């Protein structure tokens, strides 16, 4: 079945204590190549039937009204998983 991926990040101007804690751990491990970390969320919506423009629009609406709280977060992406990505996933599931 087709899948729509919604990605949500804390607003850039807000402190992200979770990301800061992860960045601190990386720093302690000597992973100095990475100056900072921000932690967001990824949602995968399984779609009943084909992903039409209307379904994508509904996914955006759901993303902005429920999956994210636009007071503290931004929706940074709403897209359909490509056929290649879906096939990779099927391969992984059957252990290929």
């Amino acid at each position, binding site marked *: 079945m087709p899948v729509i991926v919604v990605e949500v990040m*804390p607003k850039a101007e807000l402190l992200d*204590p*979770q990301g800061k804690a992860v960045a601190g751990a990386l720093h302690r491990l000597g992973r100095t190549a990475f100056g900072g970390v921000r932690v967001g969320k990824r949602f995968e919506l399984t779609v009943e039937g084909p992903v039409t423009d209307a379904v994508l629009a509904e996914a955006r609406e759901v993303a902005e009204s*429920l999956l994210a709280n636009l*007071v*503290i977060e931004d929706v940074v992406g709403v897209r359909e998983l490509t056929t290649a990505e879906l096939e990779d996933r099927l391969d992984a599931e059957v252990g290929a």
Partner: protein
Amino acid sequence: MTRVGVVTFPGSLDDGDARRAVRLAGADPVRLWHGDADLQGVDAVVLPGGFSYGDYLRCGAIAALSPIMTEVVAAADRGTPVLGICNGFQMLTEAHLLPGGLVRNDHGAFVCRDQRLRVERTGTAWTNAFEQDEEIVVPLKNGEGGFTADADTIARLEGDGRVVFRYLDVDPNGSVNRIAGIANERGNVVGLMPHPEHAVEPGFGPDTPAAMRSGVDGLRIFRSALQALLAA
């Protein structure tokens, strides 16, 4: 007798204490269930603290979509006093009854302390029993209590006198302008992160200079609603 509903959600923790506070304030506490679209004709509503739905998605986000919340929003629009404590405050912002949002404490740790607050607005349904700028102590316990909003919203809240409670001594969770609680325009809906229901009975409240665990400053928040309803 005035009837005050306390809603229980999956994961509510302080609904029992909130009902007890309502009783000690002199009202009749009524158990309300999140899955019922029915307020049972109560005169006021308390959304208690806890971790509804395990804080999944965002604190208070899923609870804000409960069947009973449609009724709470409608009642709030009619002027019914509604109080959101901690997780209840988070629900009120998620339900858009109050502006802004609550984010993870800036220091990353859970905070649990007896917190001094200043009551900066007494003209609400939940603070009319206090003196203007009175200082009170009630317990505070949260992991995601940092109040935030965009600059325009903060300016409006401050300018309109809708900051009801402000943290004194420290900013315990990184809240903008040390905001601990706010009201809607009408003053019938109030949300705050600290827990007034834990400071309502001698022997079980915060320490005071007079005696250990004798702090009962939270009680007047619940008494205020009774006064507001009698005056209405």
